[in-house]
């Protein structure tokens, strides 16, 4: 375990976290209100009905670089308001990286030390980002994937009541961040009824929160999940009974749920650069699925996909190099990508 001294507040003046939260002061006011851009140039006109639009919500524009800033702020704000999180209290969270980085960034500003539990096979950039915001990093066994991180964090939290665990997989403040934030922005920015929304499946928070709000506005909208197809090396669960369905995720609210392999996700990530978008691997998977949806879409349909993060955290994995798809599938087998 890497241990870093607990962060203080902002340099110079004493910080009143409650006032910061109330005012949305400082960098926290820059969370959300991300751009929605047209990337229809990535659709193949030969196989797409006329007027079909593909729009990308650039959550990479959030201060710490991912959609999880919204989730972390929502969970911390609600916990501070309810008193579940006390001033200066340490936050513990299982994460594949982005949520930990967001919690660490916000915790740094508001004076909460953060301890992140991550699978040991994440890219080194994530560890670096967590540490630069002063977070401690605890590694769970790589072969157990996210399930292993959740289990380890639950054990650590049970053993130490001084820790506060937001637990994004179970916390309603996660989907609510998207119900109250991401989705209203989409409705305002899309300029037309939204026919389909595509996002990578992690906790399910984005798909559930955005989906719930969009359905209120557009009852026929299709909510579509792009799900990572796991390789054998990270399916080291001892039994199916040890599987974990995040309580946040109600799979019956998904209209479609489509597996995307690593090579296809990377191909999508590379293709996004043709639209000038430098994105993480889950956005490539979302593009792969969004293009399938576009082929089946009616003329004039509007499809929205979510770019959960930018590509910086994946540079060391070399996914923009010249390896072909077969080689990538092999090389990425043991990694943890979103």
């Amino acid at each position, binding site marked *: 375990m890497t241990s870093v001294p607990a962060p203080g507040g902002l340099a110079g003046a004493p910080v009143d976290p409650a006032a910061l939260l109330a005012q949305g002061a400082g960098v926290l006011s820059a969370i959300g209100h991300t751009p929605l851009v047209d990337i229809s140039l990535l659709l193949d006109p030969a196989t797409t009905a006329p007027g079909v639009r593909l729009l990308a919500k650039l959550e990479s524009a959030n201060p710490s670089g991912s959609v999880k800033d919204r989730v972390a702020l929502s969970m911390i704000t609600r916990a501070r308001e309810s008193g579940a999180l006390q001033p200066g209290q340490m936050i513990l969270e299982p994460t594949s990286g982005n949520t930990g980085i967001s919690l660490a960034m916000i915790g740094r500003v508001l004076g909460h030390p953060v301890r992140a539990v991550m699978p040991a096979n994440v890219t080194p950039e994530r560890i670096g980002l967590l540490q630069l915001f002063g977070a401690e990093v605890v590694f769970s066994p790589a072969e157990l994937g996210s399930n292993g991180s959740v289990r380890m964090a639950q054990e650590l939290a049970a053993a130490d009541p001084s820790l506060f665990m937001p637990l994004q997989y179970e916390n309603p403040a996660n989907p609510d961040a998207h119900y109250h934030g991401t989705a209203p922005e989409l409705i305002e920015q899309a300029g037309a009824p939204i026919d389909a929304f595509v996002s*990578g499946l992690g906790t399910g928070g984005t798909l559930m929160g955005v989906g719930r709000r969009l359905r209120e506005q557009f009852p026929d909208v299709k909510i579509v999940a792009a799900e990572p197809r796991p390789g054998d090396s990270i*399916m080291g*669960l001892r039994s*199916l009974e040890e*599987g974990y369905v995040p309580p946040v995720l109600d799979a019956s609210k998904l209209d*479609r*749920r489509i*597996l995307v392999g690593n090579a296809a996700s990377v191909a999508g990530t590379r293709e996004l650069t043709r639209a000038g978008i430098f994105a993480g691997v889950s956005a490539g998977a979302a593009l792969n699925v969004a293009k399938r949806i576009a082929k089946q879409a009616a003329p004039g349909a509007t499809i929205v996909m979510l770019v959960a993060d930018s590509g910086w955290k994946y540079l060391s994995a070399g996914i923009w190099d010249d390896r072909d798809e077969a080689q990538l599938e092999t090389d990425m087998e043991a990694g943890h990508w979103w």
Partner: protein
Amino acid sequence: MATFRIPPVLRPLTDEQVEVEAAGDTLAAAFESLFASYPDLRSRVIGDDGELRRFVNVYVDDEDVRTLDGLATALEPKASIIVLPAMAGGSR
């Protein structure tokens, strides 16, 4: 024939076979054909209610059958069927 991709946790029940071919026009029929060869699989995949167990996800040609027609999902002649344990979040 459809092809089942067996996850590591279930391979002890399929003589360590990674891929198993099975006949059937629907997912239910293909499962029956699979269970005929590997009977111990049934209780691990199908619950007492006759439905897929909660922590088992099944995908036909990469689509979750729970968003299709469940066990009644029709299979194309060379359908690929993936059985996966439910995972939290991005597991890759």
